[in-house]
């Protein structure tokens, strides 16, 4: 019985995860390393990877700062009524339930070129949809719950007594945050950052809708993979996908490490 279950587990993992992963690698290296290099050094591939990199950096920074602050408010703030806190707390999860495509659509509907706000901004020379800002906003929307959901439980668990102790010793909020709160939530935040990076790296649906997928302009790594597949250029697609997959595996290792550190502290 035991053997059967373990065997089944191995089989599922092999079929669903390990073999596909190898397939990507072998697909990318179908024409040898040269083919892979060629696929990756296409100008559109370099540009797409760079776009993804830029979005990852911007989104991670913004999501971390706002996510941590919002978590602190949702757990601690005495100026928010508990019922409002509860309401906001459940709203935090909503982006989980929203299909990325719909997330992208929301932004197009709100600030797209056909809307009042969009037209106004465009008049002022700021382009949001079909440009970087829209892609960043779409990704921020999708990644929003990740940081909050990592940090809030840690804050709840450590309680507010250490912070109050610091207050009684004369420390004001910033000093208290950096010296007392931050060391306790650090690993939770790092875990949240890793999750945010992974999700941003892989975000596809929302970005596809908002960006318009314009080559060498708003194309990201994932939307390039999509376009390559649509153009039946599976080899090139596999090359970019392999880079993304390698990053994901790296992030997964980082996640495991952060999880372990978080448990220790």
């Amino acid at each position, binding site marked *: 019985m035991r053997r059967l279950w373990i065997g089944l587990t191995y089989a599922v993992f092999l079929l669903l995860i390990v073999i596909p992963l190898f397939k990507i690698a072998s697909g990318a290296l179908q024409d040898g390393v040269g083919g892979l290099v060629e696929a990756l050094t296409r100008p559109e591939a370099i540009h797409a990877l760079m776009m993804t990199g830029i979005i990852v950096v911007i989104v991670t920074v913004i999501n971390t700062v706002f996510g941590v602050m919002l978590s602190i408010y949702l757990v601690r703030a005495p100026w928010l009524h508990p019922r409002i806190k509860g309401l906001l707390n459940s709203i935090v999860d909503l982006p989980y339930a929203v299909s990325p495509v719909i997330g992208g659509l929301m932004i197009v509907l709100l600030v797209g070129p056909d809307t009042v706000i969009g037209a106004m901004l465009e008049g002022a020379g700021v382009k949001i949809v079909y440009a970087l800002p829209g892609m960043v906003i779409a990704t921020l929307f999708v990644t929003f719950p990740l940081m909050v959901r990592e940090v809030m439980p840690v804050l709840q668990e450590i309680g507010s007594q*250490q912070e*109050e*102790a610091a*207050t*009684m*010793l*004369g420390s004001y909020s910033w000093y208290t945050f950096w010296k007392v709160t931050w060391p306790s939530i650090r690993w939770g935040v790092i875990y949240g950052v890793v999750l945010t990076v992974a999700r941003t790296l892989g975000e596809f649906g929302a970005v596809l809708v908002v960006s318009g997928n314009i080559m060498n302009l708003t194309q990201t790594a994932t939307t390039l993979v999509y376009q390559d597949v649509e153009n039946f250029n599976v080899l090139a697609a596999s090359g970019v996908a392999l880079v993304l997959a390698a990053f994901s595996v790296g992030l997964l290792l980082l996640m495991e490490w952060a999880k372990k550190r978080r448990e220790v502290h």
Partner: protein
Amino acid sequence: MHIEVKGLSKSFGDFQAVQDVSFGIQKGHLIGLLGPSGGGKTSILRMLAGLETPSSGDIIFHGQRVNDLPPQERGIGFVFQNYALFKHMTVFENVAFGLKVKKLPKDGIKERVQSLIELTGLKGFEHRYPAQLSGGQRQRVAFARALAPEPQLLLLDEPFAAIDAKIRSELRTWLKEMIERVGITSIFVTHDQEEAIEVADEIMIISKGRLEQKGTPWDIYKNPQTQFVAEFIGESTTVANISSLTGFEEAAAWSGTKGLIRPEYIEIGKPGEITLASAAMRGLVRHIHFRGSEWMVELEIGDIRLITYRSLEKEVLKPGDPVDILIHRAYLFNDSNSWIMENKLKVDPMPVII
């Protein structure tokens, strides 16, 4: 620091945690806030500290109203219930925190921390983390940390709650000595009356958000001013028909009056053993329990049950034995009043009348 509190109230939503509490505390005194859990003691302490804003009322330090002063500027040391030590900092860093906040020079910090660590007997533990300390050591660190910035008032929230019963009494004595040596005005919260009586110069009894009584432990024990205080302090049995007991017949004059009798108010002996026999009455031993240093005796007089203690040196009673019971005094109360009544027959013994 001289402290005065006037009409202090605090409500959380519909719940009245503290209701119209007023008191004054003299400089240098050690005060115990005593009462059942959830009675508002901690809320009072947190309002003094500035961690909670009063719904109404004034808090006055040195004649100056401090309601609007943030906790950072009140000059108060606070020892939290679970000590709230910074768990990522060593003992030294914990104690030094308040001094670093004040931006004191490094040498000064080092000197002050060292002297506090020596004072609290933590020498050799400076570089340990809180997780590597015992409960008692943690409490000492919390105490040293609170004292480091030289506060004028020390607040302690259930300082012994998280400590093993065995070393608790040792730490109590230690803390009392320490506070006396430092000479700082201190207030501590506890739900343990033994602890309050042993440690505090003065006790304030808090129940359901109200201040029931304030006074020295002896005062409160001897002259409880409310029914709650009488029942809360010490052991006692409440007797509904108190006027049926010998010596308390006069209580019948106030209808609805009940009596509260402490074990130590009762003297028992084998028939004939009690000298003031006329003030005593006959009862039965229902049960005896060995309590380590004495016997606890359950008595039965008609349908009234009482409890008292009996020395191990005296003859051992058996359940069912008849005994003479002399009740020295009782604490009487009704809806509007409460007072202590001595056994009338004992004060004015019958032989004189005959």
